[in-house]
């Protein structure tokens, strides 16, 4: 396997509570942080529920379905990891549960990405240790 030179998600010492998200990806499960007190989903992960101030939360498995909310197509590689892949699209997906996440759509050409396209999660094992939640067109 060629050396993987793109940036990898690295939870920092102060934000280690995000690790559960990536651990679930490794198991090919998409989980989103959910408040145990009021049930509100939240992403990206944070310590306290901004709605009810509870610090009790759990990782909740979600459908992995959503729609493209917005996107950009990068033509000029800002990171050497994508030097041979431009132009490429990065999308913001709004999950059916209401939160958004940035990702890539693996089976749509950059010029064909559109806001509103229904997508579903597709896990990609990019290294032996790291799996990224990407998306494909919903069937």
């Amino acid at each position, binding site marked *: 396997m060629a050396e993987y030179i793109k940036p990898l998600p690295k939870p920092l010492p102060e*934000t280690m509570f995000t690790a559960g998200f990536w651990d679930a990806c490794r198991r090919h499960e998409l989980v989103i942080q959910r408040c145990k007190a009021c049930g509100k989903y939240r992403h990206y992960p944070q310590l306290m529920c901004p709605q009810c101030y509870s610090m009790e939360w759990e990782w909740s498995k979600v459908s992995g379905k959503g729609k493209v909310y917005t996107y950009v197509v990068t033509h000029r590689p800002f990171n050497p990891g994508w030097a041979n892949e431009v132009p490429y699209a990065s999308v913001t997906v709004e999950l059916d549960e209401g939160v958004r996440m940035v990702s890539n759509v693996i089976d749509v050409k950059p010029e064909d990405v559109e806001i509103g396209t229904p997508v579903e999660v597709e896990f990609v094992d990019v290294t032996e240790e790291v799996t990224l939640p990407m998306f494909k067109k919903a069937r």
Partner: protein
Amino acid sequence: MTLKDKCCIVGIGNTAYTRGTDKTTMQLHLEAALKALADAGLKPSDVDAVIPNAVAGTIAEDFILNLGIRDLHMTSTMHNGGAAIGSAVQSACMAVATGIASCALLVAGRRGYSAQRASKGVTGSPLPVMNTAHEFEAPFGHGNVPMWFGSACRRHMHLYGTKSEHLGRIAVTCRKHANLNPQALMYSKPMTLDDHQNSPIIVDPFHLLDASLETDGAGALVIVSAERARDLPKTPVYVMGIAEGHPPCPTSITQKEDMADMEGLRLAKPRAFGMAEVDLKDFDFAEIYDGYSWITAASLEALGFCGKGEVGPFVESVSLEIGGNLPINTHGGLLSEAHVSGVNHFIEAVRQLRREVEPARQVKDCEIGLVTSAGDFHEGVVAILRR
């Protein structure tokens, strides 16, 4: 108590704006600081408050050391990216108006070309506010500024029909003004709307000419009380009103309720306008933060110059040039003068209000100007200055 008219910007100074330097960021900051103090008719020994800029990475201790400051009363480092210089003005005025300090030095700018070059993915020491985006977005090739604002711009285009040409009109306006400004990086480089449209796409929807200029340089401001300002040599420029806006979801643009809105400015505007007791019609010019052309476009909406989503038709019908209805970025802005973290917007506003710029660039008889700063994920500061 109100801050209205309590403090004045009495000194401004900047280094040359270059693409390439053999100076360190701190050298640039000290050079700008000495110029601003000389402009104010003050000495380094007068300074008792220093407000450094987190993006630049400089620290108050290095100013104490180099300027030989014997008794610094106050320092506070601003962490809201491009909005930091606006926040620095507010904090300086708070410190001076309350007597905590008597003479505040504010410095911003960096080696944006020689060291922290954004287009090469080099942004200097990682800023804590970017941790979330770096963890959750950079792995998907979405870890740089144009991708974040490009996503917001795409929403704007989707919701309201805004077009690249509309952004181009703002970029061209900035360029025309830079062509009148000998210290602008783009002074001798005219640009048409066709040039904008034909420039390479960097991150669709942005062309290269939608992006601000990677610049080596720094600028500084000196703020004292209005009372003291009247004894200094230059025409004092009063801070009539100022307010910061720190909207929700500050660590990523992705989760914002409305990412296509410059919410920080929208929050700050009524407080700043209320303090200054002014309305939109009172401004002779506006220096509006322009890290990307779209930021300026969305700022015009957030400030109320046009309705939400209406900036496209607005820029088609209203002249933003000097001599027009609402001259913006009369120096060329970050798009065409230099990107020194927005301190040049304040410097230009002061020069305009002192009526000391080149005649072709001077907004005639100007009395009141608007300045905005914007940074990170839609943080914003609104400042209103008068002579």
